[in-house]
């Protein structure tokens, strides 16, 4: 097996699901408030995203995207595939081309998970929103990411809505336009 394949097969997805579940339930105990837990998950996701982007860029041969559509494709077809083994579809583009949805048929984070009634406003997979936000910020894109639909909360599919806010100019690498 090549080195990359070995790396991917070593991690057992059940352990991953259990680890994430332990994280969420501990946050629920610590904060006792769904909104606060959602915020913490987003923050943790952000800290993961700012690191994960370098791993992604180092390992994939993806260069700078020309526009937001290309970004959407790279996220869905390369990044999600690489890290979660799933390929969401990109749909619902806004007329201005600055907003789109990722439709997730399945989500490894929520295997075997059911939300109880007392956590109806918990966005269980909110970590993903933070990851996407943090990763894109490191390549000079400010985006807003949130769950528009959540299969855990009764919707048919899970939909992540991503909106481009602006280019981050201050720390642009020298020479980039």
């Amino acid at each position, binding site marked *: 097996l090549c080195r990359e394949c070995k790396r991917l097969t070593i991690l057992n997805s059940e352990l991953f699901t259990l680890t994430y579940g332990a994280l969420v339930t501990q946050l629920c105990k610590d904060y006792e408030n769904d909104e606060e837990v959602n915020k913490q998950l987003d923050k943790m996701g952000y800290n993961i995203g*700012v*690191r994960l*982007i*370098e*791993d992604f*860029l*180092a*390992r994939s041969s993806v*260069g*700078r995207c020309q526009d937001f559509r290309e970004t959407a494709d790279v996220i869905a077809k390369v990044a999600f595939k690489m890290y979660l083994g799933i390929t969401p579809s990109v749909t619902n583009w806004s007329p201005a081309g600055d907003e789109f949805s990722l439709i997730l048929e399945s989500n490894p984070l929520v295997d075997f998970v059911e939300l109880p009634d007392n956590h109806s406003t918990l966005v269980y997979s909110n970590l993903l929103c933070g990851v996407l936000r943090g990763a894109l910020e*490191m*390549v000079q894109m400010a985006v807003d990411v949130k769950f528009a639909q959540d299969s855990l909360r009764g919707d048919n599919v899970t939909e992540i809505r991503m909106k481009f806010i602006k280019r981050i100019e201050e*720390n*642009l*690498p*020298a*020479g*980039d*336009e």
Partner: protein
Amino acid sequence: MAIFSVYVVNKAGGLIYQFDNYVPRAEAEKTFSYPLDLVLKIHDEKVVVSFGQRDGIRGMSSVATSSGVFRILLFAIGSQLSPEVGSSGIEMLETDMFKLHCFQTLTGIKFIVLADPRQSGIDALLRKIYEIYSDFALKNPFYSLEMPIRCELFDQNLKGALEIAEKAGNFGPGS
């Protein structure tokens, strides 16, 4: 040693990692007889005179001083000097004594390698160093972004990569 130095520069232009791989020439030579009237000690893995400094015998000063020249301002200067519009900085600087290679990531981190002009495979080495950075620095939760890299595993793996590059370099396919 065909690869002289490796530097990592953060987004703000600060040097966060430096590795120098060459043996400095002795700056001064003097013969002593026993007993020595100097006291030597080990500091930062270099021999330094801690008492009795005189006659230019100061032990080995940090090899960083001469390489301080190759700092980050190269980028700002490089963009200004370039005859091309939209230049993103210096990618390669060649002189008789060395070749300076630079790789800038989309996130603004810069990896710089100073090597013998005849050394090949530096592009591949730069990509490898990026991988090593994304593994041993970034995946260490105790390492803070943009801060100096003080991770042993990073050092070890970097040295390993340099060894491989040096061995394969002159005989392998060009970079």
